[in-house]
């Protein structure tokens, strides 16, 4: 049975991804700051903050003991906080960078070690269309995801010799908690900038992730795929 690690599985896209890969017969290891919301024989939950190095290393060690290796990682956990730059507190800046950048990096580092033996690891990071669209009010969130994209491209090169691919997906807005605070007119204006003008759905994300995870995708790495026709 293949093992996939998914961060941020308590709700939203992360939970849907976990449900999907459990249904597909994967062993799923998930994490969130809180308790698990998934009850399945093949699901193992870790309560941790993705930016806590000790916690992430501990999770990796536990996975090595239980499953021996990890086949795929979906770095889904992320936070956003919409605010004008003139009003953005440094504490919020640090919190966003810590979760989105440090958290993504720590999981890449630790899980890539557990992918070495299979020589066919798959890492999928999560970015956002807020970066290419230069969305006002999302300066720090978009900047954190720009860092994730850079991380994706460089790790793709560093991990290529180990047979691990590293790619990213950039969803459009999807109806989850992450965008609940965004005013409707802002959301509509954003969707107008997409080639395909509709809200994203979780199955759009799953479809792209499935593509990256396929064994046949072993020649695809360092790529960022935006949904909705955003470029």
């Amino acid at each position, binding site marked *: 049975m293949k093992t996939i690690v998914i961060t941020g599985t308590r709700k939203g896209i992360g939970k849907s991804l976990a449900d999907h890969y459990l249904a597909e017969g994967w062993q799923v290891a998930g994490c969130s700051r809180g308790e698990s919301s998934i009850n399945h024989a093949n699901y193992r939950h870790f309560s941790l903050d993705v930016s806590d190095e*000790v916690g992430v*290393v501990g999770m990796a*060690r536990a996975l*090595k003991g239980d499953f021996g290796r990890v086949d795929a990682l979906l770095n889904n956990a992320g936070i956003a906080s919409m605010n004008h730059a003139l009003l953005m507190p440094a504490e919020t800046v640090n919190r966003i960078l810590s979760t989105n950048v440090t958290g993504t990096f720590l999981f890449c580092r630790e899980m890539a*070690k557990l992918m*070495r033996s299979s020589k066919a690891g798959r890492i999928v990071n999560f970015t956002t269309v807020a970066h290419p669209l230069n969305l006002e009010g999302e300066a720090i969130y978009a900047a954190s995801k720009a860092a994730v994209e850079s991380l994706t491209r460089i790790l793709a090169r560093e991990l290529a*010799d180990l047979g691990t691919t590293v790619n990213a997906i950039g969803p459009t807005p999807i109806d989850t908690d992450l965008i609940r605070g965004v005013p409707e007119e802002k959301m509509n204006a954003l969707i107008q900038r997409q080639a395909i003008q509709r809200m994203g759905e979780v199955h759009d994300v799953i479809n792209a992730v499935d593509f990256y995870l396929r064994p046949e995708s072993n020649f695809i790495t360092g790529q960022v795929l935006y949904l909705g026709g955003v470029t």
Partner: protein
Amino acid sequence: MPAIPEIEALVIESVRMLAEDFEVEVLKKPNRESLLYGEGGPLDSMALVNLIADVEEAVSEKFGASIALADERAMSAKKSPFRCVASLSEAIAERMPS
């Protein structure tokens, strides 16, 4: 803290396993003098990265300590701790919690 010979034994075993994986003939029977990386050392940078990851993992499993070998001290050291088995073992000992 484990004694130096115990740490050296752990490093030697990690080097031996890596040499099998990476097919590095001269390191298939390593000892404390075996050169690893740098002038005269047989490992390339990717093999060294793998060795360090393996050794950190082995230290955690065997001694229950989480250490980082490629830290700023190692990067700025005049004599690289990754030069040979003995220097790598010393670097581990220096980073073990007391």
